[in-house]
């Protein structure tokens, strides 16, 4: 697959999209782990929801 004289523009475009999408995915995954860990810490410290259900238990 020859991309001609503008290879750098095409490759940079695709690489940038891949990088930004990967960053979004990683950011959301890390945020999810972080929030669950904070909820577990709070519940382990004896703070529970009024319903009594686990705040991080979503399954």
């Amino acid at each position, binding site marked *: *697959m*020859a*991309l*001609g*004289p*503008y*290879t750098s*523009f*095409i490759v*940079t*475009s*695709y690489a*940038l*999209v891949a990088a*930004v*999408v990967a*960053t*979004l*995915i990683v950011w*959301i*995954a890390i*945020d*999810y782990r972080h*929030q*669950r860990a*904070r*909820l577990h810490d*709070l*519940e382990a*410290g004896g*703070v*529970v*929801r*009024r*319903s009594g*259900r686990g*705040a*991080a238990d*979503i*399954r």
Partner: protein
Amino acid sequence: MDWIDGAIDQLLPSGFWQIACKASDDYQGVMTLIDLANPTKFLTLTARVLPWLAAATAILLVVGLYQSAMAPDDYQQGATVKIMFIHVPNAWLSMLVWGVMSLAALGTLVWRHPLADVAAKAAAPIGAAFTFLALVTGSLWGRPMWGTYWEWDARLTSVLILFLMYLGLIALWRAVEDPSRAARAAAILTLVGAINLPIIKFSVDWWNTLHQPASVMRMGGPTLDRAFLMPLLVMAIGFSLLFVTLHLAAMRNEILRRRVRSLQMMQASQRAA
């Protein structure tokens, strides 16, 4: 969000607004519309749906990338036409996400739907990312085709304004500590900003711009050859599914973040007592 869960469960009988929609075979009972207003049930549904959405997104994007790689060169643009397959979906999504946020803003202001401001807040960074990619890939496409990375024409400028509005909205969410207060201000700003959407869409018709007019979503049908249209549509659907997947995951995070805040406030009041 505890009180919302409880209030909704008490106020509305189960089966209210029933719709014949089963989330999956093992999902117990028929899902109700109001179920989606309940954060706990929303989280349960999200946990079931997300893996399937992620898989469908990955498959579509792989197929779309393969088709994009195999697409022929354009007789005028050469291989740079391949940038279109990522530029156009990101440009469409930059406007679609603001449209979703506008609907969520209505949900916040008119119906006070418990998940509306969660949806709007979770969508903003994703929309900003898509808009950024639309601007940069457009710039990288423009340099070899137009001879310039940037031109202050109506289309490019209105999309840049959209990007700045996304950043402003994210800053507003971060500046106000109380989510419910931030939600109302952000909802108003979102609805005001929605005025920019038709300006972006029709800017190429209303003004003389360097940017080309619409070639897919236009009266009379697409002007693109099928060899370019098919990869573009597959990529557009793949990116749309990517948005839905990321948005649901980000909404889940936001609900958990609000639960953390609620528990921290309970902890603080317990300590004070």
